C-alpha cells in the first residue's frame, strides 16, 4: 500500500506549507496558530524548508540555466523515438570551429566539435544548422561535444546583453570526456528573452578548469568585442582547444 495520508484533513496541506516556505503566505493568524499546536505540520514545514537549501546543489540555475537529465534518453524522454531519430540524424550537422576564428567561418582538424541541439516550442528536437541557426526564448538547448583527445570540457554562452553564462557544467570543475566519443553534456539551458546573436563556446583542456575561470574569460572576450557576441573570436583559456557556434535568438512568432 503506497497511497496513504500522513496527516489528517484538519492539518495544513503541502500546498499551504509550500506557499509559506516560498514566501507566498505569512505565518500569522490561523496558520500560525495551527503550526504552534501541531508538531506534524511543523515538522513538515521544516522538512520543506530544508529541502530548499539543498536544491541549488541538486539542480543548478545560473540565470536561465537549468540542469536537465544526465543522458540523452532522459532528456529526450518526452520526445520519444522521433527525437532519437532526430538526434541520430543530427550527426551530419556537427560543426567544427577553431578559435580564434572569424565569425561564421568553419575550420577543420581541431579535434573538437560542438553541436547545439534544440528542443523547440512544439516539442521537436533538432540540431541547429552550422550557420544561421535560430532559437527562441523558452526553447531549450543541449550541447554535444566530441574531442579527439580525452579532455575536460565546458561550455559558456555569450549573449547580446553582454552576459557570460556557464551552460555546462553549471558549476564546479569541467567534466572529462573520452576521446573520439560523442558526448551529450549534462545540463541544458532554457533560453531567456534576451534576443540577438549568442555565441556558445566550448573548450577542451587537459586540466579540469573551473567554470568560474571560463565565465571570467568569456566576460573578458565579450568586453573586448564591445559586448557583441558575433565579434568574439575566442576566449582566452591557455592551453585549451576551443570551438564555438553562433546562432540568433529570435522572438517567438
Amino acid at each position, binding site marked *: 500500500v503506497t497511497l496513504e495520508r500522513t496527516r489528517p484533513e484538519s492539518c495544513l496541506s503541502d500546498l499551504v506549507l509550500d506557499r509559506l516556505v*516560498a514566501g*507566498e503566505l505569512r505565518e500569522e493568524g490561523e496558520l500560525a496558530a495551527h503550526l504552534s499546536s501541531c508538531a506534524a505540520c511543523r515538522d513538515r514545514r521544516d522538512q520543506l524548508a530544508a529541502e530548499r537549501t539543498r*536544491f541549488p546543489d541538486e539542480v543548478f540555475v545560473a540565470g536561465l540555466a537549468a540542469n536537465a537529465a544526465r543522458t540523452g534518453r532522459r532528456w529526450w524522454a518526452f520526445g520519444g523515438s522521433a527525437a532519437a531519430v532526430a538526434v541520430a540524424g543530427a550527426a551530419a550537422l556537427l560543426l567544427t570551429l577553431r578559435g580564434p576564428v572569424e565569425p561564421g567561418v568553419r575550420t577543420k582538424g581541431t579535434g573538437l566539435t560542438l553541436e547545439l541541439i534544440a528542443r523547440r516550442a512544439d516539442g521537436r528536437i533538432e540540431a541547429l544548422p552550422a550557420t544561421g541557426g535560430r532559437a527562441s526564448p523558452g526553447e531549450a538547448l543541449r550541447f554535444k561535444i566530441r574531442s579527439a583527445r580525452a579532455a575536460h570540457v565546458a561550455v559558456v554562452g555569450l549573449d547580446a546583453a553582454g552576459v557570460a553564462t556557464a551552460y555546462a557544467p553549471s558549476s564546479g570543475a569541467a567534466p572529462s570526456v573520452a576521446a573520439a566519443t560523442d558526448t551529450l553534456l549534462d545540463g541544458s539551458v532554457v533560453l*531567456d528573452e534576451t534576443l540577438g546573436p549568442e555565441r556558445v563556446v566550448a573548450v577542451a583542456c587537459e586540466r579540469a578548469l573551473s567554470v568560474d575561470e571560463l565565465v571570467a574569460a568569456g566576460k573578458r572576450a565579450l568586453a573586448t568585442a564591445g559586448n557583441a557576441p558575433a565579434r568574439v573570436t575566442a576566449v582566452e583559456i591557455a592551453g585549451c582547444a576551443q570551438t564555438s557556434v553562433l546562432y540568433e535568438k529570435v522572438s517567438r512568432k
Partner: protein
Amino acid sequence: MSFSRAEIDALYRQYGPSVLRRARAILGNEAAAKDALQEVFIRAIRAGDGFRGEASPMTWLYRVTTNLCLNQLRDHARRAELLAENAPPPGEGAVVPGHDERLTVARVLARLPEELREIAVYYFVDQMNQDEIAEIVGVSRHTVGNRLEEFRALARAATGEGVVGSVAP
C-alpha cells in the same frame, strides 16, 4: 512582459524545489522528474504575464506539474500496453515483474480511472483537504467527496491485492 534572466533564476530557486519534489513523488523516477521540472518551468516562462499575474504562482505550478506528470504516466502506460501487445510470450525473453515488486505511487495511480488520479494526487501526495482540492481542480466539494468515495470502493475491492491505499476518515 517577458521574464528577465534574473526573474527566471529567482523563480527557479523559489519554486523549483516544490516542483521537483512533487514530480518525484508522482512519477517515482528521478530522471523523469527532472524532465518534468524543466518542462514545467518552460511552460511558466512561456506563459509570461499569465504566470506572473497569478495570485499564487505555487498553486499554478502545482496544477501544471500534476497534469504534466499524469499525462506522462498515461503516455507511459500506453507505450507499455503497445510493448506488451508486441512482446514475445513468457519464456521467450519477456520480463514478468515479480509479485514483490514495490508498488510506487505511479503504479497505483496508473490503476485508477483517469478522473480519480488528479484528486488522488492532491489528496494523498499533497495532503490537501477536500475544500482545497475542489478549488484547485475546479469542481465542487461534493464532487471531490464522491470521487474519494469511489476511491474507497476501489480500495475495498482491491483488498488483498495491495494495490490502493487508505483514505483517512
